[in-house]
C-alpha cells in the first residue's frame, strides 16, 4: 500500500469567511498505480493535490491522516517534510511558463533538486544526470536546453523540464496537477504519452488531477470523481464510463458525447463572402531607412456564410483565426482580397469573458451602450421592429420616431434581451466580477444581439468554461440562432464543439 488517505478535511480561514474545500475524503493507492482525480473548479481537487504534498498555504487548517509508505505526513515538521518533498513525492504544476524561476538557467534549476537531497554529488555528475533525464523526457539537444532560460522554451518543452525535475530523485509518487490544460491539443497527447511511459519504465505511481474527463480516460486506470469537496464516485475508469452511478458523473459524461449536428445545405443569399483574402502585418523598421518587413498570417482564404448558416473555423492556435475575425469586423485593416458583408453592424462574442465586460460598469449600463450609440435610420427601424418595442412598452405610446431610442425604450429592449439569454432582471444592477463565467458569457451574447445585428462571430465562446456549463451556453446559442435566423462564424480549436454547432467547417493550417 503506497498511499492511504482517511477522512481528510481542509478549511481555508480568510479575513472575511471560512470556506470548506475538502469535507472528509478517504481513498487508497497501490504502488505503480495511476490514479485520476477529476472534478470541476471548486470541487476541491486542487486543494487535495496541495494537501498530499503538504504544501497548503498558512490560512489552511486540515485534519485526518495521509499515510505515505506507512508514515503519516500530517504531524511532520517543515524540515522533516523537506526530506520527502522532491525526493519521494514530486509535483508537476499546471502553468509551466510561470513555475520556473525566470532569471535562472533551466539546467541549474533542475540541478538544484539534486543538490538539496544529495550533497555528495559533484557538479559534473549532477550535470550528467540532468542531461540523461532530459533525454528520458524526449527533449531534443539537451545540451542546448540546459543553458537556456525558461522564457526561451516552448510550453511543451517547459513542461518536459518540469517532469524531468520531478523525476531527478526517482520519487515513488508523482502528483501532476492539470499538467496539460495550458498546452495545445497535440502537445497534450505527447505529455500524456510521456507520463504513461515513465510509469511503465520506472514504476512511478502517478496521481493525475484534471477537469477534463478525456485526459483521465487516456491515462488513468482508477479515478475519483470529486464534487463540492467530496468523492461522489471512485473505481476503474472503464467501469465508471460505461455505467456511472452518481448523478453528477452522469452529467459530466453526457456533456462529452453530444452528437453531431445534421448539417443542412444553404443556397440562399450569402451574408458573408470572403474572396482570396491575404492577411499580413508590417513590423516597424528599427533603424531609419530599413525596409518594412511584412509578416503574413494567412493567404488566399475563400469561404462564404449564407443567411442562417453557422460556419465553423477550426485550426491550431497561431493559425490566424482571431486575425481573420478582426479583419471581418473592420478592426484589422492590413489585408488584400475582398470581404463582402451584408450586415453593416457585425458583432462578436469574445472568449475571455473576464475582460470582455467593462469591470467598472454595471451590466445594465453595458447592455444599454450599443443602443445609446445607435444612429443610422435603417437599423433603428429594424431594432424597434425586431424587439416589438410597442407591445413591450404596454402598447400605450407608439415607439418614438426620433433619431435615437428614448431611455424608456432602451430599458425595455434590455429587459427583453435578458429574457432571451435566460438571466434574471436583477442582474442589471450587478458588476461583471459578481457574475460566474457562464453568466458573463450570457451577457456577452446579449450584448452581441441587442443591436439587432444579423451576423455574429463567436470566437472560442465556451473554451474557458467548465464542461457542464459549456453545454448550456452552446444550447442557448443554437436556440437564439434559429429563433433570430442569425448567420454565424464559429471559431474553436475543439473539434467536438465545432461538430456539434456548425453546418459547414473551414479547416485552417498555420502558415509555414
Amino acid at each position: 500500500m503506497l498511499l492511504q488517505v482517511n477522512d481528510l478535511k481542509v478549511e481555508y480561514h480568510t479575513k472575511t469567511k471560512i470556506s470548506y474545500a475538502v469535507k472528509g475524503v478517504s481513498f487508497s493507492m497501490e504502488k505503480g498505480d495511476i490514479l485520476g482525480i477529476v472534478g470541476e473548479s471548486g470541487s476541491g481537487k486542487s486543494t487535495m493535490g496541495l494537501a498530499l504534498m503538504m504544501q497548503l498555504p498558512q490560512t489552511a487548517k486540515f485534519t485526518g491522516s495521509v499515510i505515505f509508505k506507512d508514515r503519516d505526513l500530517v504531524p511532520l515538521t517543515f524540515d522533516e517534510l523537506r526530506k520527502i518533498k522532491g525526493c519521494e513525492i514530486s509535483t508537476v504544476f499546471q502553468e509551466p511558463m510561470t513555475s520556473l524561476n525566470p532569471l535562472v538557467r533551466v539546467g541549474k534549476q533542475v540541478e538544484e533538486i539534486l543538490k538539496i537531497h544529495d550533497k555528495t554529488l559533484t557538479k559534473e555528475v549532477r550535470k550528467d544526470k540532468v542531461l540523461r533525464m532530459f533525454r528520458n523526457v524526449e527533449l531534443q539537444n539537451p545540451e542546448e536546453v540546459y543553458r537556456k532560460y525558461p522564457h526561451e522554451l516552448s510550453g511543451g518543452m517547459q513542461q518536459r523540464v518540469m517532469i524531468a525535475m520531478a523525476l531527478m530523485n526517482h520519487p515513488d509518487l508523482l502528483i501532476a496537477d492539470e499538467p496539460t490544460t495550458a498546452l495545445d491539443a497535440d502537445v497534450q497527447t505527447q505529455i500524456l504519452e510521456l507520463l504513461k511511459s515513465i510509469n511503465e519504465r520506472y514504476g512511478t505511481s502517478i496521481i493525475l488531477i484534471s477537469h477534463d474527463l478525456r485526459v483521465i480516460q487516456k491515462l488513468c486506470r482508477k479515478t475519483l470523481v470529486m464534487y463540492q469537496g467530496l468523492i461522489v464516485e471512485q473505481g476503474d475508469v472503464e467501469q465508471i464510463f460505461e455505467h456511472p452511478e452518481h448523478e453528477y458523473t452522469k452529467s459530466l459524461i453526457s456533456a462529452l458525447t453530444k452528437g453531431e449536428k445534421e448539417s443542412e445545405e444553404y443556397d440562399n443569399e450569402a451574408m458573408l463572402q470572403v474572396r482570396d483574402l491575404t492577411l499580413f502585418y508590417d513590423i516597424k523598421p528599427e533603424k531609419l531607412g530599413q525596409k518594412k518587413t511584412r509578416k503574413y498570417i494567412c493567404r488566399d482564404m475563400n469561404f462564404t456564410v449564407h443567411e442562417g448558416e453557422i460556419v465553423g473555423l477550426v485550426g491550431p492556435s497561431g493559425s490566424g483565426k482571431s486575425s481573420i475575425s478582426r479583419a471581418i469586423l473592420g478592426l484589422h485593416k492590413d489585408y488584400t482580397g475582398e470581404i463582402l458583408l451584408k450586415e453593416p453592424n457585425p458583432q462578436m462574442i469574445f472568449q475571455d469573458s473576464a475582460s470582455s465586460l467593462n469591470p467598472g460598469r454595471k451590466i445594465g449600463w453595458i447592455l444599454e451602450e450599443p443602443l445609446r450609440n445607435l444612429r443610422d435610420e435603417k437599423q433603428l427601424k429594424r431594432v424597434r421592429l425586431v424587439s416589438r418595442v410597442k407591445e413591450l412598452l404596454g402598447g400605450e405610446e407608439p415607439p418614438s420616431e426620433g433619431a435615437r431610442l428614448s431611455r424608456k425604450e432602451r430599458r425595455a429592449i434590455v429587459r427583453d434581451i435578458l429574457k432571451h439569454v435566460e438571466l434574471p432582471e436583477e442582474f442589471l444592477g450587478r458588476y461583471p466580477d459578481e457574475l460566474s463565467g457562464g453568466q458573463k458569457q450570457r451577457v456577452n451574447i446579449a450584448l452581441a444581439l441587442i443591436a439587432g445585428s444579423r451576423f455574429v462571430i463567436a470566437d472560442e465562446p465556451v473554451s474557458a468554461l467548465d464542461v457542464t456549463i459549456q453545454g448550456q451556453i452552446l444550447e442557448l446559442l443554437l436556440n437564439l440562432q434559429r429563433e433570430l435566423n442569425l448567420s454565424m462564424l464559429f471559431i474553436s480549436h475543439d473539434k467536438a464543439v465545432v461538430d456539434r454547432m456548425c453546418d459547414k467547417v473551414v479547416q485552417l493550417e498555420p502558415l509555414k
Partner: protein
Amino acid sequence: MKKNRNYSLIIGLVITGIMLALALTALFWTPYSTTGMSLTLKFAPPSWAHPFGCDNYGRDILSRVMQGIGTTFLVSASTVIFGMIVGSVIGFFAGYFGGWFDEVIMRINDVLNAFPSILLALVFVSFLGSGLMNIILALGILFIPSFARIARSEMLRLKGLQFVQSARLSKAGTCRIIFAHIMPNAYIGILASAAVGFNNAVIAEAGLSFLGLGVQPPNASLGRMIDEAGSFLMQAPWYAIFPGVTIIILVLGVALISDGVNRMD
C-alpha cells in the same frame, strides 16, 4: 478570527482630519493673531500660554503653524489637482493614440523627469514671481509628467482588453471610449498616485519656501518658518522643530491613507 480592520487607513484619516480641522479653524480663528508682534515675547519658550513658543518677532508659533498648514494644504492640493487633471488627459490621449504623438509626449516627459523638480520650479518662479498662484502653477506643471506616465500605462493596460474592442463594435466614438469606458477603471490607479503626489507637493513647496521663493510673508508657510528658524537654532530650537514636525505628521497622515487605500482593493 478578529476582524482585521485597515489600521493604516483609520490612523491616516484621523491625522489628516485633525490637520484639516486645524487649517480650517485657522481661516477664522487662531489662539493669537498670526502677525501680532510683541517685544516681550521674543523667543518665548513653549509654555501653557504659547504651547509652541514664540518666534523672533514674538509671534505665536502655534497660530502661525495652523495658518501654515492651511497654506501648505491649499498649495499642495491645488498643485496635485492641476497636475492630475492635465497630466491624465495628456497621458490618456498619448496612450490611446500611440504613434508619434505618444513618442513626443514621452520624450518631453523624459526631459521633465530628468530635471530635478526644484530646479524647474526655481526657473518658473523666478520669472513668474513668487505669488501663491505662481507657486501652484509652477509646481503643478512639475506634476504633469508623473500623472501623464501613470495615465498612459493605465490606458495601455486597459486599451488591450476586449471590452474596448466591443465598445468600438457598438460604434462608441474615441472620446466616449476614453472617458465613458476606460476612465472608470483607470481613476483608482491615478488617485493612489495623487496621494503620493500630494506629499511630494508638500515637500516641494516647503523646499521652495526654504530657498526664499515660496509663499509671501507675512502669511506663514511651514517651509519659510523653518528657513527663518534656521538662524536661531541655538536660542529657539522649537521655532524650527514644531513646523518641521508638523510637515512630517501632515505627510504621514496622507501616506497612511494612500497605504490603506491600496491595501483595501
